[in-house]
C-alpha cells in the first residue's frame, strides 16, 4: 500500500455495472515525507475520504476485493485515512 493525497473527485454516470455506486477520487501519490511522487491516479473510495485528506491505497487485483462486488475492474482502492505517519 502507498500514501497519497486526495486532490479531486471523479463523477462518471455511465460506467460498468460492477462499479455502480462507487465513489472515485483522484489521488496524488506521496512519499512518507509528504512529497509528491509519480502521476496522479483514480482510485475507488470506501472510507469516505475527501479532497485534502491524506490516505493510503492498494494497487492491483486486491483493490477490487475491497468492495462487495468482487468481480470488478478497479485497480486502485483507498483503504484508509492517515491520521499520522511516524518516521
Amino acid at each position, binding site marked *: 500500500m*502507498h*500514501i497519497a493525497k486526495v486532490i479531486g473527485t471523479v463523477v462518471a454516470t455511465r460506467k460498468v455495472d460492477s462499479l455502480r455506486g462507487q465513489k472515485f477520487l483522484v489521488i496524488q501519490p506521496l512519499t512518507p515525507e509528504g512529497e509528491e511522487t509519480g502521476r496522479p491516479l483514480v482510485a475507488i473510495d470506501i472510507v469516505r475520504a475527501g479532497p485534502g485528506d491524506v490516505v*493510503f491505497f492498494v494497487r*492491483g487485483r*486486491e483493490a477490487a*476485493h475491497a468492495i462487495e462486488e468482487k468481480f470488478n475492474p478497479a485497480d486502485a482502492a483507498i483503504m*484508509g485515512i492517515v491520521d499520522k*505517519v511516524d518516521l
Partner: protein
Amino acid sequence: MYIGKVIGDVVSTVKHPSLDTKKLLIVQPMRPDGKLEGEPIIAIDMVDSGIGDVVLIVDQGTAARQVLTMDYPTIRTLILGVVDRIDLPDGGVR
C-alpha cells in the same frame, strides 16, 4: 520476496474493515548490501517488527491470501520475517 528496512509506522482510525487490528508499517526496500533503494511501501506486519528492523517483504496478493487466510485479500504487502543476518560473498549486513 525482498528485503526492506522499517522506516516508519502509519496510524489510521478510519480504514477498511479488513485492516482492523492490523499493524501498518512503512518499509523502504533495501539491497542486500544495505543500500536503500526504491519507493517506500506500506506493509502489514505479521511478526511484531518495528522501526529500524531489517525485514523480509512479500508484495503479492496470493501470498497475503495464504498468510491471512482471506478469500478475497485486500492486502498484498506483508512483512513475513525479521532478518537476523544476510551473508554475501563480499560481506553481509547485520
